[in-house]
């Protein structure tokens, strides 16, 4: 029988088949939790007198609410503090391992799992956070769940689920110089739309995808949710195995050999059928930025701000009009002329070491533009330490950027790092929704490379535009 990778992973985890349109009961290999979506789940367990079935398959970290400066002081916001304190108390009570603020392993949940080697091919991974799709870069079936499902997984280590449909997004050919994983995924979302992936698991394939590093693959899978998809996956290969080998939780000895043999047969069979297929020519891609208030409203940086009249579809026209108003943009303005107040480098999309290296390469020996606030926020404490060891922190600071502690930071307005009303940012995060980075804040989603070049000029800029 031939199948897609998603189907193979699914089938390998069915505890109890539903049949007849009923959901299958699926086993969960790894459950990641954080302070925002877990308190009520633990409260539900307590009310029903249920234990956590497998604390040893569960891992907690503090990320959404935590400050990225003065982390040794108490969290000022009472709601954030209460959530963090609840997580600590719950993890202690139920025996769940936790990486609290200040711990050497703390960081954004989707950065922590992979860097520890906990995310492996063929696993099912869930978390009460939509960007759990990140972990699919390893060939895991990984998706976000709601709070009542968090409780369900805590109690049973399994979840009743109806099968997803499958979509193949094939990116073939060679990426032009300066084009990154972020540009690929922004182009995919612009093409299929923010609802285009609804109900699907997307498998990214093709030579351009295979040539990417694990970090870059995570960037792509991370934003699958922005195309409406439940999950994204990339077939495990040598790049995956090399990344995993030697990590804290990666298998060793004969277990490693068994694992690699298993992982190697997960890829979709050549004749596997997908419910939908999309093909993109890598050579046609260029640095991409968003101009609107959803991740599908993006264009190559060489373009101009569109006019609502450019959209034949009534709904899209209306959305564009509203977005332009919110963003304070005039149709016809070259995207390269848009000036920014702030640049944010970080998040589970682009807060890994490779992203920081790319930014440092551009900032090295340069200064950020006058009046531009630049935040560089590592995705985890480990990423921060690695960056320090490589001298990247010094480069950021010498260039005039703020070099922060690990956390979600300005990706979402839940901690002190926020945009003020009307403030415009180039951001390496994943959502440009109204108010996402702070009430009234205006977000342009970009790659780390574009973020860094923009920091230098104060306008949306590609690295190639910078005079050498």
């Amino acid at each position, binding site marked *: 029988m031939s199948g897609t990778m998603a189907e193979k992973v699914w089938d390998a985890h069915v*505890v*109890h088949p539903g049949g007849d349109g009923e959901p299958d*009961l699926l*086993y969960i*290999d*790894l459950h990641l939790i954080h302070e925002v979506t877990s*308190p*009520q789940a633990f*409260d*539900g367990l307590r*009310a*029903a007198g*249920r234990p956590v*079935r497998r*604390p*040893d*398959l*569960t*891992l907690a970290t503090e990320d959404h609410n935590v400050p990225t400066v003065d982390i040794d002081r108490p969290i000022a916001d009472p*709601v954030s503090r*209460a*959530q963090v304190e*609840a997580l600590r108390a719950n993890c202690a009570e139920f025996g769940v*391992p936790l990486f609290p603020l200040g711990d050497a392993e703390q960081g954004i949940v989707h950065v922590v799992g992979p860097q520890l*080697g*906990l995310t*492996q091919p063929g*696993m099912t991974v869930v978390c009460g956070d939509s960007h759990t799709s990140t972990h699919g870069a390893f060939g895991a079936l990984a998706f976000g769940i*709601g*709070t*009542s499902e968090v*409780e*369900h997984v805590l*109690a*049973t*280590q*399994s*979840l*009743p689920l109806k099968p997803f449909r499958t979509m193949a997004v094939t990116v073939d050919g060679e990426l032009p110089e300066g084009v990154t994983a972020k540009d690929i995924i922004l182009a995919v979302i612009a093409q299929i739309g923010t609802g285009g992936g609804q109900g699907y698991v997307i498998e990214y394939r093709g030579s351009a995808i295979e040539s990417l590093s694990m970090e870059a693959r995570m960037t792509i899978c991370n934003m699958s949710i922005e195309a409406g998809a439940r999950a994204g996956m990339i077939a495990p290969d040598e790049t995956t195995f090399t990344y995993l080998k030697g990590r*804290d*939780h*990666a*298998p060793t000895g004969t*277990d*490693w050999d*068994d*694992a690699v043999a*298993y992982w190697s047969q997960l890829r979709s069979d050549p004749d596997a059928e997908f419910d939908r297929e999309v093909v993109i020519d890598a050579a046609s891609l260029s640095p991409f930025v968003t101009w609107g208030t959803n991740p599908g409203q993006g264009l190559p940086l060489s373009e101009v701000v569109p006019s609502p009249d450019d959209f034949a579809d009534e709904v899209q026209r209306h959305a564009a009009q509203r977005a332009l108003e919110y963003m304070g943009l005039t149709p016809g303005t070259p995207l390269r002329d848009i000036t920014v107040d702030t640049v944010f480098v970080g998040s589970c999309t682009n807060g890994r070491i490779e992203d920081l290296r790319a930014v440092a390469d551009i900032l090295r020996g340069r200064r950020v533009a006058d009046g531009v606030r630049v935040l560089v926020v590592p995705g985890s404490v480990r990423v921060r330490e690695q960056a320090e060891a490589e001298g990247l922190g010094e480069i950021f600071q010498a260039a005039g950027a703020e070099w922060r502690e690990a956390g979600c930071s300005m990706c979402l307005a839940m901690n002190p790092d926020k945009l003020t009303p009307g403030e415009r940012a180039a951001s390496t995060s994943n959502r440009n929704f109204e108010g996402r980075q702070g009430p009234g804040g205006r977000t342009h989603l970009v790659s780390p490379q574009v973020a860094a070049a923009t920091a230098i000029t104060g306008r949306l800029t590609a690295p190639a535009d910078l005079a050498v």
Partner: protein
Amino acid sequence: MEAFVVHEGTAAPLRHSNVDTDQIIPAEYLKRITRTGFHDGLFAAWRTDPDFVLNRPHHQGVSILVAGPDFGTGSSREHAVWALQDYGFRVVVSSRFADIFRSNAGKNGLLPALVDQSTLERLWEIVEATPDIPVLVDLDAQEIRAGDLVAPFDVDPAVKWRLLNGLDDIAITLSHAAEIDRFEEQRPAFKPVTSS
């Protein structure tokens, strides 16, 4: 979860259509970290009005809400169901429910009883005329009785089964515990654990 077979209580007539989840419980209550204690947030904006139905002296202690069509639209927050339950409601009767509300209610043990518009109007009239009239909701027979009214209601068969048996999602999954055990025994040794 407590099984629901037959419930008898008094009812509150909520003559509003399109009650969205923001009206049921405003967003500011979502910051809480508990799963219970949301009764104070229920219909918070309306509760400041002394004339609001739940504030009227003869509608105290109600357990059945009789609401207008399109109840529970808007954001999918489960807190809307929790707030209704924390307040003491066991049944919401309406002539149309928002899908997500209906499924959230069923999951949490709050019975969403779907009636036709004429039954709804009759119920309103009856409980407004006689606020303390006992209203009987028989889930097995799918029937509502109040005074001389005997009317059928609709409920999703899966929700009915789960309510009659007092099963929540987790309890249903735990009925397969032996299969989960067996699955765990066969998991490959190379799969990671989070504890060191």
